[in-house]
């Protein structure tokens, strides 16, 4: 299961979780509050800093006049006179520049990479689909971001260096049009490249994974109806089933089973299966691979974990695990443990799950983590039991009998919960049998409780680990959504690059945008480090040896990180204050910069999960807010600088 984060909820993401909210800890803020704060910073603090800088040169009254005029003319002049045609002219120029400066080499690199992909990809992997999809998505992402970075960071500095900007800004062009035009131009180049790469990737993946098998004639076994004992076999025996093996192609072979009508499927190997058909002439036709390019659209439930005393808990921590995954312990022999993971699924109605569409029952998939405290029988999975319960507290005890299962780490177990369940207590359907819809569903809700049965073994559970799988979404659509997130990243990188290039020289702007990406990507790690430095020894995850300046001095002077610095105390205090300032800035920056991990969706596609609609919505909103804020900032930077230096 790829999903190593909680199931996103758009409104909680946007507005924040009211219970955890703490004004001093921006991690608990929703995106909306964060965005408002960033905009306030932009609108109030940025002009104030401009004012301070300008007053050094011109004195306060002149400086106030400058800043006020810049702000005033932004609204009265630049906004109403904004011209799409001029913006598009600049954008076109950026596109022509990119093309004629042979930026499309990046695309060539990509095609070359795919041509030789066969040489380095692990074709023997038991999930080649994931390997192929990860490779194309990651390489696309990397190349497009690098291209956006280089194009955008060098654009305006090059214009200033070649002084071509003289002939542009002496035309009635607004700074806003230059900034936006540049961004739009580079984004267009990036979009075109992304579209090409996407199409090439899609065909590369589907062509590479496409293969066929033959049937090994020697292995085919036909099974006929046995004649009743003591009677001679009739001339025309009834064919029950055919089984056999396919040829060994592409590092794998399948076994298959056909029904009496001569149609059937192979087993699933390397994440796919084939249709097999026997023709009237007795030949076998093996169809193309199926089931590997999918986008599962799970129906998730809410998870509550109970400890062995039946209390709600976060689960047992067995070591280096993600915060959101907890473990439940298996029972002690002879003692019924209360430790269980209970998922509550809503929306279980006959309309959503009509029995004629799901004739055998509710489709359920589980991929539990397994933690063994002793080796046990390593060939066998860890045993668990699943109980389907009615969530209504008044219908206490209305539950199915335990359904036993074996869980192996990383293996997805697909099963069907039948509509009629065995139970000690009877229900509507009569004694000893429960009707799932009538007896166990309460107001559209149903509970699935999972226990670990093997003593002293553990199951790791997280909310997305168990889900109903009513149907699949379109793989192509999912692939497109993944490209949309790459596109949004590209757009943000371009906007940041252009913003930095409005006041920095090319290489410095490149470095700055790269730092912004790295800081955005590793925001939470960096934040932990800064807090560790700021709070020193007391905090969890404390960083010893101080901030950058202090640790540099310690390295030079070969000081132990645990002892006091061997310099005079005033100097040491000054260094600590400077370091503290740097750490605070870094800490603030991790919140201001976009969190690029939010845009990482390659795992979803590679593992065959549909990208959440909520995640797409979050990405779009984040993209829009950052794009707007960065563009406006870039506009003010360009407007208030002298282009002739």
């Amino acid at each position, binding site marked *: 299961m790829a999903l190593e984060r909680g199931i996103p909820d758009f409104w909680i993401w946007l507005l924040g979780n009211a219970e955890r909210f703490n004004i001093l800890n921006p991690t608990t803020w929703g995106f909306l509050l964060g965005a408002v704060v960033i905009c306030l910073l932009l609108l109030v603090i940025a002009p104030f800093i401009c004012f301070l800088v300008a007053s*050094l040169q011109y004195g306060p009254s002149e400086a106030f006049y400058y800043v006020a005029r810049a702000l005033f003319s932004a609204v009265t002049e630049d906004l109403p006179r904004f011209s799409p045609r*001029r913006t598009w002219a600049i954008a076109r120029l950026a596109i022509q520049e990119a093309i004629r400066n042979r930026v499309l080499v990046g695309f060539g690199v990509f095609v070359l990479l795919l041509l030789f992909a066969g040489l380095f990809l692990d074709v023997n992997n038991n999930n080649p689909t994931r390997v192929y999809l990860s490779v194309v998505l990651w390489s696309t992402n990397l190349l497009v971001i690098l291209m956006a970075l280089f194009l955008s960071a060098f654009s305006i500095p090059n214009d200033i260096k070649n002084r071509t*900007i003289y002939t542009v800004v002496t035309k009635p062009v607004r700074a806003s049009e230059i900034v936006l035009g540049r961004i739009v131009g580079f984004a267009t180049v990036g979009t075109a490249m992304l579209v090409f790469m996407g199409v090439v990737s899609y065909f590369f993946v589907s062509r590479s994974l496409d293969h066929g098998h033959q049937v090994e004639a020697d292995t085919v076994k036909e099974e006929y109806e046995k004649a009743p004992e003591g009677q001679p076999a009739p001339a025309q025996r009834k064919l029950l089933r055919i089984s056999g093996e396919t040829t060994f192609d592409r590092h794998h072979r399948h076994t298959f089973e056909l029904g009496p009508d001569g149609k059937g499927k192979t087993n699933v190997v390397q994440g796919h299966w084939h249709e097999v058909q026997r023709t009237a002439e007795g030949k076998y036709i093996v169809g193309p691979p199926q089931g590997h390019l999918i986008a599962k659209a799970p129906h998730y439930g809410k998870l509550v974990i109970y400890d062995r005393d039946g209390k709600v808990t976060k689960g047992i921590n067995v070591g280096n695990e993600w915060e959101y995954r907890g473990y439940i312990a298996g029972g002690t022999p002879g003692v019924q443990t209360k430790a269980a993971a209970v998922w509550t699924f809503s929306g279980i109605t006959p309309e959503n799950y009509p029995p004629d569409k799901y004739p055998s029952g509710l489709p359920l998939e589980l991929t539990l983590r397994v933690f063994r405290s002793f080796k046990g029988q390593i060939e066998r999975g860890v045993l668990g039991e699943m109980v389907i319960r009615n969530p209504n507290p008044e219908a206490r005890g209305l539950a199915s009998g335990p359904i036993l299962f074996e869980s192996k780490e990383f293996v997805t177990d697909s099963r069907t919960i039948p509509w009629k369940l065995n139970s000690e207590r009877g229900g509507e359907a009569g004694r000893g049998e429960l009707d799932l819809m009538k007896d166990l569903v309460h107001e559209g809700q149903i509970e699935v409780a999972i226990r670990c049965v093997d003593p002293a073994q553990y199951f790791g559970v997280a909310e997305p680990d168990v889900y109903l799988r009513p149907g699949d979404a379109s793989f192509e659509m999912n692939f497109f959504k993944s490209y949309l997130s790459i596109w949004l990243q590209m757009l943000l990188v371009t906007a940041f690059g252009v913003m930095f290039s409005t006041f920095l020289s090319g290489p410095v702007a490149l470095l700055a945008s790269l730092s912004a990406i790295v800081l955005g990507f590793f925001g939470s790690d960096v934040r932990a480090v800064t807090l560790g430095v700021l709070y020193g020894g007391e905090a969890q995850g404390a960083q010893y040896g101080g901030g950058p300046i202090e640790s540099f001095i310690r390295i030079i002077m070969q000081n132990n990180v645990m002892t006091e610095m061997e310099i005079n105390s005033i100097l040491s205090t000054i260094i600590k204050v400077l370091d503290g300032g740097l750490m605070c800035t870094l800490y603030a920056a991790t919140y201001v910069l976009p969190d690029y991990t939010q845009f990482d969706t390659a795992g979803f596609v590679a593992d065959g999960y549909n990208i959440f609609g909520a995640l797409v919505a979050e990405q779009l909103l984040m993209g829009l807010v950052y794009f707007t804020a960065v563009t406006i900032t870039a506009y003010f930077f360009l407007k208030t600088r002298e282009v002739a230096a």
Partner: protein
Amino acid sequence: MTTQLEQPPAARPVPSASDVIIETRNLTKVYRDFWGRQKVRALNALDLQIRRGEIFGLLGPNGSGKSTTIKLLLGLLFPTGGQALVFGKEATEVTKNERIGYLPEESYLYKFLNAEETLDFYGRLFDMSAEVRKRRTDELIEMVGLNWARRRQLREYSKGMTRRIGLAQALINNPDLILLDEPTSGLDPIGTREMKDLILKLRDQGKTILMSSHLLPDVQDVCDRIAILHQGELKELGRVDELLTVQDVTQVRARGLSKAAEEEIRAVIARHQGELLAVENPTLSLEELFLNIVRDSEARPGRRAGQN
């Protein structure tokens, strides 16, 4: 360059004293280094008025502040002190650019575009419609004589050709005010002549032209008024013909006179009678004037125009 735009000299509007196009008041520019320390005072308290319909020349040796003045007037630089007004607006305002054409020192154009694309691009920046852009592009390429090279990328252009396309882009919007930074640099004598003719022709169409140059003959030929800058200071300002006239000297030239006749003429002149062939003030060449000013300025730093 063809001469299709020529108009009879009679149509030439007289420079009017009231119509001030460019005005600088106490305009000062100090370049600072990264730490805010003063590096160089490129322009010091410049007061200028340029009126509608005149050709104004900014003259000075390299590094005298000519380009700085033009960049300040275009809003490419922000003044350290004083004001630069173009069409009565602050030079940093973008709207003034609607009526301005600018030919930079070297034509800073996008080398990967060809002539047509270049003019089309700058036309778009003036928000011109497609037909207008097409018409202007054709007219201007014809005017600067680059029809034969209109589809070649500018990176293949010679310096003279780049100059011409640079001029064409400066005129794309049919501007009222044209700022030419070193318009004749890099041009051969024929190109120089054509450029000067064109400048005069533009003036005859009623446009105001501000040009900077250190090539004195060019300035002498075309400019109505000049300002001489040296080390950021305005040293001389006035009409070219007045500046070049030595006011306190009269020159009389005649032919075929005997000694006696000469004597007599002296007498006649003394009595304000007789036929004079020529009585005039000797003129300096601009070169002499320029060198005088530079020499004088170096000898007596701090002297400004109008204080003798």
